[in-house]
């Protein structure tokens, strides 16, 4: 017993090393699994947006319950606490004080911020026209807004700024604070300091909001937005992985206990599984920056296949183990490795991790089953005799073979289903993988509508070497985009340059303002025929003179205003310098039409001095995912090809390869047909699931092949029994997965559970009938 002893020692050593690596590994559940490993320029912009962009740092907070007055008081209280919390860079609740601060800032600096401040504006004719326009407004609804400002701002610069700043889509106000449209919730819009990709920080921010809210009787706090979703996704994935692993482990333990009637056998079964999972995690930790939560979820899938090895070992009698069972398992493991190794070169880190995890996990599990486990079997090791079950199975299979010509229906029906649904076969949207429950997504949509904060889909990204030139670029782009608003191509856009006017622009505007005496003379002349006297407009002369001599406006002047925070959010430090972001708003719906996108792109192309790109965040993300999907298809086909090649090398017979491959291909086809017939649209995880069907199912097919090729080796009934139990374990595992709330896991489960079940029965039906055990060997030519 020296060899098993040595094997055990090596095993123990490797387990310790792997456990050490796994313990020190970084685990993530953010979107890194979906980001490409070597992105293109546009993809890099997309990733920057998803990670650090302002949209990724926005939390919508709603307070409900109690009465409007209480909600308003709580809103003010919450806003005050959050404003002093370093987790947040901006907290808006629409209270009069902060609105007043913003208005005050804009009004004080109106001559540096207004786009209409030009030398022409301050000529006699320009003043006359501007003041006449203001008088028109004075007689209309906005008149009441202008009235208190008129003597200081008769040319209407403030109205112009307010108009440019926004189409006034902000939330409505109830009891002096922002509220939902029906007034039943108070609203706050909060921006976190940390990047959207820093989920720990986002979690801390969410907790800070909950803490600050406290627990007022009868009121509730609702939160939504990308940071909240990121935190929730991580929690959901983590929870699901724990829960589902636990449930499947318990189910399999129950199954094996009822079959083996032996606790030691059950415990020994777990050794290869656990070793494989540990090896998989350790290898992924070594090969990647971080182990993704989804990859751990696949740990469950490993249970499904790795547990089979020890089932074969225990049931198919240890006597045949080394000569007959192990070679078959070895070939099965090799085929699985071929399948999963195909995923390794994927640009989708999620797939590549899955490939590496599965390959190393299966190799480890198989090696432990082969070299470590037999040495550990107690001398008195015995499990329940399953011959009777096997005999019954053999008879059932025999009966069913009579109708196996009905199998022709499978490709026909599946083909028909696939053909009928050919237009909606694939789900190419990244949202297909979103684990956030529909109710939470609906709440988000509702809060966004209430807050007048539409999901930003289109962003113009202007890159520049430094902050000031990024602002200048944003200003230039603004001039190109404004005509598109008038033409109805876009509804509007945001720009950091509106409140953080570039210094060059400020200088030009300041130079447009005439000296006091000159302005006074021109004003006198301009007022001819208007119902205003120059004496009333003395405050105007004073304000212009003040603006003419004031120092230029800097970011520091914006401190404490919500405008400043919003503008800073649109200005980000990027890889090669700075980027100014200009989110676009579509007319009517959330999406720009293709022609609108083309016109915006054409407008951007006019200006060669600015390096700007129109980024369609959702479109780009979908394109990225769609690329992964096609790639996964190609890799899966390549893996399938590699498996067929391997089988050819091992079996050296076209007929035998065909008998092994046919049931697998049929199962994949049947499952695909079944899924689309049930209205499912296939995602990347379905493709991976099909690869798993082939990997797991090949073991079954190979055992049937062995039974017919070498009937003198191993007991056919016992082989059948072991396959049935192994398959039940797999179906249980993936069946549990199919119930997951995480689409990624559910897709996988709903593909593999029925697929492997079918693979077993198709293999049984399509195998060459085994010759009587005492007959001479027949096949294997």
């Amino acid at each position: 017993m020296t060899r098993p002893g040595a094997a055990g020692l090596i095993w123990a050593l490797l387990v310790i090393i792997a456990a050490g690596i796994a313990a020190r590994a970084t685990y993530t559940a953010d979107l890194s699994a979906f980001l490409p490993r070597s992105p293109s320029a546009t993809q890099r912009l997309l990733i920057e947006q998803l990670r650090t962009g302002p949209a990724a740092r926005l939390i919508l907070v709603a307070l409900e319950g109690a009465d409007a007055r209480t909600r308003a008081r709580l809103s003010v209280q919450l806003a005050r606490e959050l404003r002093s919390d370093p987790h947040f860079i901006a907290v808006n609740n629409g209270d009069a004080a902060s609105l007043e601060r913003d208005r005050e800032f804009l009004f004080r600096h109106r001559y540096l911020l207004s786009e209409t401040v030009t030398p022409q504006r301050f000529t006699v004719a320009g003043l006359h026209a501007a003041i006449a326009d203001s008088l028109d407004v004075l007689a209309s609804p906005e008149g009441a807004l202008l009235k208190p400002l008129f003597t200081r701002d008769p040319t209407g610069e403030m109205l112009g700024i307010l108009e440019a700043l926004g189409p006034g889509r902000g939330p409505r106000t109830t009891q002096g604070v922002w509220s939902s449209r029906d007034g039943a919730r108070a609203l706050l819009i909060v921006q976190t300091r940390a990047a959207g990709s820093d989920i720990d920080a986002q979690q801390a921010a969410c907790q800070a909001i909950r803490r600050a809210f406290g627990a007022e009787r009868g009121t509730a706090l609702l939160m939504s937005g990308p940071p909240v979703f990121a935190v929730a996704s991580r929690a959901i994935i983590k929870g699901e992985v724990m829960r589902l692993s636990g449930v499947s482990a318990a189910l399999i333990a129950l199954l094996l206990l009822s079959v083996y009637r032996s606790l030691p056998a059950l415990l020994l079964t777990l050794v290869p599984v656990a070793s494989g999972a540990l090896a998989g995690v350790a290898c992924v930790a070594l090969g990647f920056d971080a182990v993704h939560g989804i990859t751990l979820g696949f740990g469950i899938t490993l249970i499904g296949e790795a547990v089979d090895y020890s089932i074969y070992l225990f049931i198919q009698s240890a006597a045949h183990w080394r000569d007959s069972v192990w070679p078959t398992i070895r070939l099965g493991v090799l085929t699985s490795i071929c399948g999963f190794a195909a995923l390794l070169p994927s640009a989708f880190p999620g797939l590549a991790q899955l490939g590496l995890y599965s390959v190393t996990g299966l190799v480890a599990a198989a090696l432990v089953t082969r070299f470590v486990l037999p040495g550990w079997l107690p001398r008195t090791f015995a499990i329940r005799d399953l011959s009777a079950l096997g005999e019954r199975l053999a008879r059932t299979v025999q009966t069913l073979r009579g109708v196996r010509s009905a199998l022709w229906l499978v490709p026909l029906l599946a083909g028909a289903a696939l053909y009928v649904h050919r237009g909606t076969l694939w789900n190419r949207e990244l949202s297909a993988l979103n684990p956030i429950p529909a109710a939470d997504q609906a709440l988000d949509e509702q809060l966004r509508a209430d807050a007048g904060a539409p999901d930003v889909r289109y962003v113009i990204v202007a890159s520049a070497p430094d902050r000031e030139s990024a602002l200048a670029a944003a200003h230039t782009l603004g001039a190109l985009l404004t005509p598109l608003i008038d033409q109805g191509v876009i509804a509007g856009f945001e720009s950091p340059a509106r409140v953080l006017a570039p210094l060059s622009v400020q200088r030009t505007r300041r130079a447009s303002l005439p000296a006091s005496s000159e302005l006074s003379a021109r004003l006198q002349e301009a007022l001819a025929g208007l119902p205003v006297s120059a004496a009333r407009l003395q405050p105007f002369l004073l304000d212009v003179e003040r603006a003419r001599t004031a120092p230029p406006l800097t970011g520091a002047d914006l401190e404490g205003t919500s405008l400043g925070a919003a503008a800073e959010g649109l200005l980000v430090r990027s890889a090669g310098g700075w980027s100014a972001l200009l989110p676009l708003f579509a007319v009517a719906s959330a999406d720009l039409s293709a022609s609108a996108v083309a016109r915006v792109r054409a407008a951007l192309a006019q200006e060669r001095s600015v390096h700007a790109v129109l980024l369609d965040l959702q479109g780009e993300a979908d394109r990225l995912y769609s690329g992964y999907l096609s790639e996964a298809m190609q890799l899966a086909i390549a893996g399938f090809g590699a498996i067929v090649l391997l089988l050819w090398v091992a079996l050296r017979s076209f007929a035998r390869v065909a008998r092994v491959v046919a049931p697998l291909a049929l199962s994949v086809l049947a499952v695909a047909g079944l899924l689309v017939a049930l209205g499912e649209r296939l995602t990347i995880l379905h493709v991976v699931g099909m690869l798993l069907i082939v990997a797991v199912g090949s073991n079954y097919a190979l055992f049937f092949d062995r039974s017919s090729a070498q009937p003198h080796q191993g007991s056919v009934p016992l082989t059948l029994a072991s396959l049935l139990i192994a398959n039940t374990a797999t179906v249980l595992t993936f069946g549990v997965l199919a119930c997951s709330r995480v689409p990624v896991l559910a897709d996988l489960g709903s593909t593999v559970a029925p697929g492997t079940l079918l693979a077993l029965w198709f293999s049984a039906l399509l195998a060459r009938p085994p010759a009587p055990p005492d007959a001479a060997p027949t096949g294997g030519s």
Partner: protein
Amino acid sequence: MRLRCTGVGVLILALAACAAAAQTTAPPAFDELLQLLAARRHGHVTFTEVQQLAMLDRPLESSGELLYEAPDRLEKRTLKPKAQTLILEHGVLTARRGHRTYVMELRDYPQVVPFVESIRATLAGDRAALERFFRVQFDGTLGAWTLLLVPVDATLAGAVKDIRIEGERDAVRTVEIRQSDGDRSLLSIGPEVAP
């Protein structure tokens, strides 16, 4: 934006003056007036408006046409001195001046709601709703009546002191809005425009 809201509200009230108001000490004539006004389905009249603002040397004068369709569409077409159009429809106010259009939803401006609600309530004969927002005083007879509306809400009273509407049977003649700062506007309704 708050100031703007009040402005809108005042304007809407002026616009909707083709409709009417109500009173607290409900004499039979007031009930009859409500019924008469509610029965009127549409109107198309001329108007002149004079606004007196303390900071201006002389009043702002304008004129044009008012169109009304029961129960909630109102259009003010100013023709002089410059063309501009204001349309109130289903609680949305649209202003067109030059080639620019401004749209605002009144629901987003709660300060305006009482004004709109007063008109809607009057047209619908919903006295309870009307009296939620104003103290209403009815004077005169059905043939020559005066309604004095004083805002109940303190925030509205801050901008608008009172509104005096005069009319004859189902026809409104003048709407006078007095603001707290002394500025005032007088809208005079002219004859029906032939279709």
